[in-house]
């Protein structure tokens, strides 16, 4: 098991390194931020001073080297727009995004998995077909459009919930969260639903596919031949088997939900990291872009690693291969 984790860890480090080079070179090929940042009428000497200050006159490999050394010391640079360290900028926005993602993933799983189990257990029933049709809506209709409909319906027309922004934030167990007050929940509900629908559609389809496949397996028939009740067959036998792909996808989707929050945060004006990255792209705020992307890559790699380990814990076949 330890050898298995170490091997995965090595791969992960390599991937992070490769991706950081790609991201760095990619982002630094975009336009010239100086043109965006300062008045076109500024004198050449002011321009030169700025270029030198941001190290833009250095060759690219040198800039990358500086960047990596700084990152190793926990310094991701300063935002060109906000003029604050990128680290503190991102960390000040991260709790809002995490909170949103957490609620959304909870909704998607808590509703999607049971619906998928039912749809896979009785695939030909009317209710299952209705669930499947809904799941198609869930992951084909663009998120931003559903978000707008939610705002129009629940915020503008009915006036039940606020249309955007984050509620009151309070300190709870060391986290700054808005989930401790009813007012906070009223703000998080619509964006979380919005963000969860796509994932819910995915969870439904994934669970259903696993269910349909597993229900055909011989061990299900054998379990029935032993006189196990349908409840025991589904929850005792089948669910254990399909939980492996579900956990895998849950983990992988956690990362993509974080990234996908970009859209929902823009629609609901949610002060998270997603909104920050959109703004930094529009304003060519390179340090923020690079840092965000590198962080996302690290996050994805970490999640992949954790998923692999959990997978190995859940599936005895994989676990044993690692031990041999």
């Amino acid at each position: 098991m330890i050898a298995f984790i170490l091997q995965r860890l090595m791969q992960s480090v390599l991937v992070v390194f490769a991706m950081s080079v790609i991201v760095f070179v990619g982002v630094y090929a975009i336009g010239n931020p100086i043109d965006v940042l300062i008045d076109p009428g500024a004198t050449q000497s002011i321009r030169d001073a700025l270029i030198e200050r941001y190290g833009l006159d250095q060759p690219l490999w040198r800039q990358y080297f500086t960047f990596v050394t700084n990152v190793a010391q926990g310094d991701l640079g300063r935002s060109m727009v906000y003029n604050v360290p990128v680290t503190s900028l991102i960390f000040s926005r991260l709790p809002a995004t995490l909170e949103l993602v957490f609620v959304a993933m909870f909704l998607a799983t808590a509703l999607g998995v049971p619906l998928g189990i039912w749809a896979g257990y009785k695939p030909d029933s009317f209710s299952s077909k209705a669930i499947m049709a809904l799941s198609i809506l869930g992951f084909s209709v663009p998120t931003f459009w559903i978000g707008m409909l939610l705002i129009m319906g629940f915020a503008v027309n009915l006036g039940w919930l606020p249309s955007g922004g984050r509620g009151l934030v309070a300190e709870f167990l060391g986290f700054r969260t808005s989930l401790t007050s009813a007012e906070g929940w009223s703000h998080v509900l619509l964006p979380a639903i919005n963000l969860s629908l796509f994932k819910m559609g995915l969870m439904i389809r994934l669970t259903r596919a696993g269910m349909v496949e597993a229900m055909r397996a011989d061990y299900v028939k054998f379990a029935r031949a032993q006189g196990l009740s349908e409840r025991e067959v589904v929850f005792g036998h089948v669910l254990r088997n399909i939980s492996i792909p579900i956990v895998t996808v849950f983990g992988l989707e956690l990362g993509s939900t974080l990234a996908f929050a970009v859209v929902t945060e823009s629609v609901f004006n949610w002060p998270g990291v997603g909104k920050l990255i959109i703004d930094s792209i529009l304003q060519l705020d390179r340090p923020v872009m690079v840092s965000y992307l590198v962080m996302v890559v690290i996050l994805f790699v970490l999640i992949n690693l954790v998923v692999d380990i959990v997978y190995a814990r859940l599936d005895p076949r994989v676990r044993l291969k690692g031990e041999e």
Partner: protein
Amino acid sequence: MAVAETTRRQRLSEFWSDFAQSRVAVVALAVILVLLFLAFACEWVAPQDPYDLRNLDWLDAFLPPGTVGSGGYVHVLGTDNVGRDMLSAVLYGLRTSFIIGLSAGALALTAGIAVGLTAAYFGGRLEAVLMRVVDLQLSMPAILMALVLVALLGSGVGQIVLALVVAQYAYFARTTHGAATVERRKDYIEAARSTPLPTYRVLFRHLLPNVMPPLIVVATVQVAAAIALEATLSFLGVGLPLTEPSLGSLISNGFRYIHTDRTWLSLYPGFALMITVVAINLVGDQVRTVLDPRQGL
């Protein structure tokens, strides 16, 4: 030749009768065809050319649906903040969306097949490197890839299509590679390889036809995804500008007015987008069911 023709026709009619088992899918297909026709005939169908600034009159701004404007005709879906006829804008926008979705889908398909087949056919280190990159790209959400690429390339139809292709080719590459590796193990490919046929012939005459069914399914879904992705990028302000209306930029423009009662600015392009994307997905779903009944996802 004649025999091949009949079996092909037979297979097609069989496919159709399987497909038509789902009435929803048939309706969805009809909707797509109507939308395609309207979109590509927009220059004749639409009452106005929304690109032509000379047609626009500030006095026509914010006319609710059903009002007669200065042009002397009814604005069925109303007008927007610069007096643009919404029906025309939606139809032209639909055309832009289709052009982007279809060309991005076709190019991503081509690129994906090329990468996937190359990897599967040659194997070895080339395969390892190519598929590693593909896997890495697949683990990143397409929206993020596209966002960065558009930021990198700038906005415009060509740039967006390129960004979508780079973001989406990986799905085709993975599918092609997966199906081709299975086929590769089968005897007929071995047999074809041992004859002095040129490599490309083995690839295109023997391998490709057998990996087509799963690719068709991925292609339908990806065209819808491309349309949705473009709309999302335009909505976020990094896609197409409003002077070149796509459904996304129209909705983005209307978004500014959703707190007022001028909801027609965003509702109509939004519904057009939703219907298009959902219809394509419903068709894709049924195609999947027909081609591979075992796979439910």
